[in-house]
């Protein structure tokens, strides 16, 4: 049941527990309980909203930064990752395989703000060897959702 609940919630966190229970053929109480358990276990870490900020008046700049770091004896990458992810400007930090070590996703109000954050905060950390900043110009698809399309049901209304 857990995996199915998660798969549904991942796409629609606003779904009613009653509907969810009906879809699973389970009781509402059982489903609510399972969700509460998963929240407690931090399997469910939060409920967010996917927003296409481009359509609002709000100016936002996001960037993906490739960071090369020196891992520390005993801690690997965890310590340096922690130093980075604690900044509120940082939206995501992933440890990567391949040509660099960490992907850091940053959001700021202006290009300048993001660039300064990288220059002043990120690049100056002791373990950081190099950074390479890529600004996002347009988001086509995010979290499995194609932005900027409205789905129209073009099927004929009644067919055998």
């Amino acid at each position: 049941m857990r995996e199915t609940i998660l798969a549904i919630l991942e796409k629609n966190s606003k779904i009613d527990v009653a509907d969810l229970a009906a879809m699973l053929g389970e009781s509402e109480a059982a489903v609510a309980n399972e969700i509460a358990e998963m929240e407690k276990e931090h399997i469910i870490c939060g409920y967010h909203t996917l927003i296409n900020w481009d359509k609002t008046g709000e100016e936002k700049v996001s960037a993906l930064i490739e960071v090369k770091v020196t891992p520390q004896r005993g801690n690997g990458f965890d310590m340096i990752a922690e130093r980075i992810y604690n900044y509120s400007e940082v939206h995501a930090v992933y440890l990567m395989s391949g040509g660099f070590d960490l992907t850091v996703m940053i959001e700021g109000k202006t290009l300048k703000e993001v660039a300064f954050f990288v220059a002043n905060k990120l690049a100056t950390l002791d373990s950081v060897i190099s950074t390479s900043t890529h600004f996002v110009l347009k988001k086509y698809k995010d979290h499995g959702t194609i932005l900027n399309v409205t789905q129209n049901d073009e099927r004929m209304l009644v067919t055998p």
Partner: protein
Amino acid sequence: MRNPLSDKVVGIQPSGIRKFFDIVSEMKDAISLGVGEPDFDTPWSIREEGIYSLEKGRTYYTSNAGLSELRTEICNYLNRRYGLNYNPDGETLVTVGGSEAIDLAFRAMLNPGDEVIIPQPSYVSYLPCAVLADATPVMINLKEENEFRLTPEELLAAITPKTKILVFPFPNNPTGAIMPKEELEKIAQICIDKDIFVVSDEIYSELTYGGERHCSIASIPGMTDRTIVINGFSKSHAMTGWRLGYACGPAPIIKQMLKIHQFAIMCAPTNSQYAAVEALRHCDENIEHMRDEYDQRRRFMLTRLRGMGLKCFEPFGAFYIFPNIAEFGMTSDEFAMRFLKEYKVAVVPGTAFGECGEGFLRMSYASSLSNLKTAMERLEEFINTLR
């Protein structure tokens, strides 16, 4: 001027669904649970293969029976999913949707006066196709208390010395009924004993729920030689508009079906055939994904319908649910019409699929959860005013 028309064709009733379609089309904001096709788009990799085939200039006829590589993939697929063994050459024919295959099978096998047994409620084209093939349709009225499965007793009662074909429409449109293997075996035994052929319409074969996988009647020992299996890509791969289906069966029958197909159709659309090769090679996972979603909606519908006190058997196939509305003292037609006009939700009266569909409605859950939810809220309001 002489009458330009064929009496036989004029005598065929137009589909009961047509009338509904015309009315629904007039209504701007109606929610439709009347759609008999998936609400998913064709998986992208399949669409892309269709685009590539056009880019490469594959815009010519294929062989009459269909692309050799597609026929090979069809046979691989039928073997992988249902344990059926067919030869891509001679026993497999690619058609323009499953519906063409139904027509071909009837025309290739029936002589005037032969009887075709059609269990109802079922898809709208068996009866007219049987009539067009100069055969006599014999209806079996399937019963709600049997969960709309075909019982050996019902079949035996319908068989006469003239019976040649049994149409076997499972998983069923409109009821959502399936036939479990044990019951198939009994039906198969009767067909063997009485020397009857089976046209098995398995277009919904990928859409079965509750852990029970579809079992093809052709896989029952002794049945391969007397069964035409009809299937296609419309429901399994959400490819209705591509118009692609197929028939597999004994070589002598397929040979005659191919003859009609060759003269009437030439070949199925080339573009669709290339796309379908991709569908069969790499898209089993897409099928599972769509089935899981339908299954969630199926349970949602069943819970809601039963929750509002409607009598409704649990369907384990296709994407339809078939609640009983006889308690309201209206015909299916009246109920559906009032529900449409007063609550703006389109459902199809059970009678569109045979007279024995009276007292039932077909609701398709190939629609978004939010649509289903709104439709169920309105249905509850409606029946509360009736009680």
